[in-house]
């Protein structure tokens, strides 16, 4: 389907070739460093983590804690709205950036700035922007409209909204570029043929663009969902989980349990409790990656 993204040719026959002794030894030697890294730095911590969070008592404790339930609800809101809104916007914007005009190309160069800027400084700046008294945003509101802006980060919903806005600000360019690459890989002739058949504008979008990009869109959304579940930086630096821990998500709450309150097992349990949601997404993603020609 998509030329740039589809380099995934089956090489199943190659796997079946059995090699003689010395070559197998060499091949194993080449793979050894990664195998070692995986054993010592991934597998061992993963097993240790499961062991830490294995007691059922931890989960009854979690589910009776209002703090945990709030964090769970926040996680679902943050992931649900954040990922879908971001992906939809990125997809639409990638269409806008397909234009060949000079000013659109220049705009793209500016537009990827949030992707290039490290999360930490960018989020610190946004946090400061949202300060109720001297923040830049309220100064702008005052200067332009004479509105006395709210103190953004002392209300749970405003704070969560600020987290979402900052999250979209930071992540949008990256996914727009991905979708842009996906759209670019569709041969021009296909659109020209659609034009000849009278599919233009909205109809071309629905009947040509969307079906062609659906698979890429799905894979990207699944991947982004998994990563957003683990998003620690946005919440930590924008709302700080506040006011009074009302905007914590599972990732930040887990770290708080483990390192601020020194109950690592509870922290691990908070994180592990997301697995029933994560595992189906991972399975679907793996299957999509293996069967489709969209390779991410």
């Amino acid at each position, binding site marked *: 389907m998509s030329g740039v993204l589809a380099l995934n040719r089956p090489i199943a026959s190659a796997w079946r070739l059995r090699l003689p002794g010395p070559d197998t030894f*060499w091949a194993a030697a080449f793979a050894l*460093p990664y195998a070692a*890294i995986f054993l010592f730095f991934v597998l061992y911590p993963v097993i240790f983590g499961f062991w*830490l969070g294995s007691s059922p008592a931890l989960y009854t404790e979690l589910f009776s804690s209002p703090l945990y339930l709030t964090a769970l609800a926040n996680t679902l809101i943050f992931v649900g709205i954040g990922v879908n809104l971001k992906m939809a916007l990125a997809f639409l914007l990638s269409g806008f950036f397909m234009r060949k005009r000079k000013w659109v190309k220049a705009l793209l*160069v500016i537009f990827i700035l949030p992707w290039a800027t490290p999360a930490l400084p960018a989020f610190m700046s946004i946090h400061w922007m949202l300060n109720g008294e001297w923040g830049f945003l309220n100064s702008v509101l005052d200067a332009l409209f004479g509105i006395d802006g709210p103190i953004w980060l002392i209300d749970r919903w405003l704070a969560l909204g600020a987290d979402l806005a900052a999250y979209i600000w930071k992540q949008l360019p990256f996914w727009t570029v991905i979708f842009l690459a996906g759209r670019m890989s569709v041969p021009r002739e296909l659109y020209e043929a659609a034009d000849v058949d009278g599919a233009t504008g909205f109809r071309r979008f629905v009947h040509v663009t969307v079906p062609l990009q659906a698979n890429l869109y799905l894979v990207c959304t699944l991947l982004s969902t998994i990563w957003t579940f683990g998003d620690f930086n946005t919440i930590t630096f924008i709302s700080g989980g506040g006011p009074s821990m009302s905007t914590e998500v599972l990732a930040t709450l887990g*770290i708080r349990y483990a390192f601020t309150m020194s109950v690592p097992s509870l922290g*691990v349990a908070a994180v592990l409790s997301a697995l029933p949601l994560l595992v189906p997404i991972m399975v679907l993603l793996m299957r999509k990656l293996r069967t489709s020609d969209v390779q991410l």
Partner: protein
Amino acid sequence: MKRLGKIALGVGLVVWTIMPIYNMILVALDDDAAEYSGHLWPSEMNFESFRVIWTQDYWYLEHFWHQFGNSCFMGFMTMVLTVAIGSLASFGLGRMRLRHGWVLGHVALLTYALPASFLAIPFVHIMHRYGLSDSLWSVIASQTMFATPYAILIFQQYGRLIPLELDDAARVDGASPGQMYWRIYLPLMAPALVAVGTYALLLAWNEYLYQFLLLSSTQSMTVAVALDQFFDSDEAPWNYMMATAIVYSLPPVATYYALRRYMVAGLTMGGVKG
């Protein structure tokens, strides 16, 4: 009318994108954070904060250049290790067709989809057990382990563009697998090596959580952790902090724009990680 809408969209996007960056510069150029009044334009170009960073003239910034060096060292080692380990593994799995090698490939794919913050708690405990607490090497290990799966994915994809017959020809000429890796595989993989190396460098430079959890002394700290300490303290002058944030952001931003083509090529070659 339609054209007007497009221009409005363009202007909106620029304002949305630039605002936090502009705010960063605005605060950094302010002369006195204590009396920060919330103006919209810099009243004067005051580079005092940058001078303070350059001369480490404030107690939070006492070790700034040492910490900057730590960040550089950590990023560089992550880059080298990721490219080395990833290319070796992908050569063994993809070119040498290691038996049962697909297990390792799938394992890498799973690690790729693992949220880093979910593994942090047990990882930190294991690092203490290894005696690597407060060591830059523990951070390098964590970043390498998260970057290598991406490296293997990209190298596998890119490696398929290199015909296997080349290896057979080299073998007939008596080349050992080591020579094939060094003389044929690596030179032909150069664009992918650049893309993955840049990715690993920026991943390590921009990462925060593992550095925060693993590094505690001012000597081993990186800029990210120092910046966070700044952020957490109540009396810290914001103009110094924002100036530090700008200095910290400059290397990755410069790298992105210089190597943009490679980065995007790397992404579309077959791997995505933000």
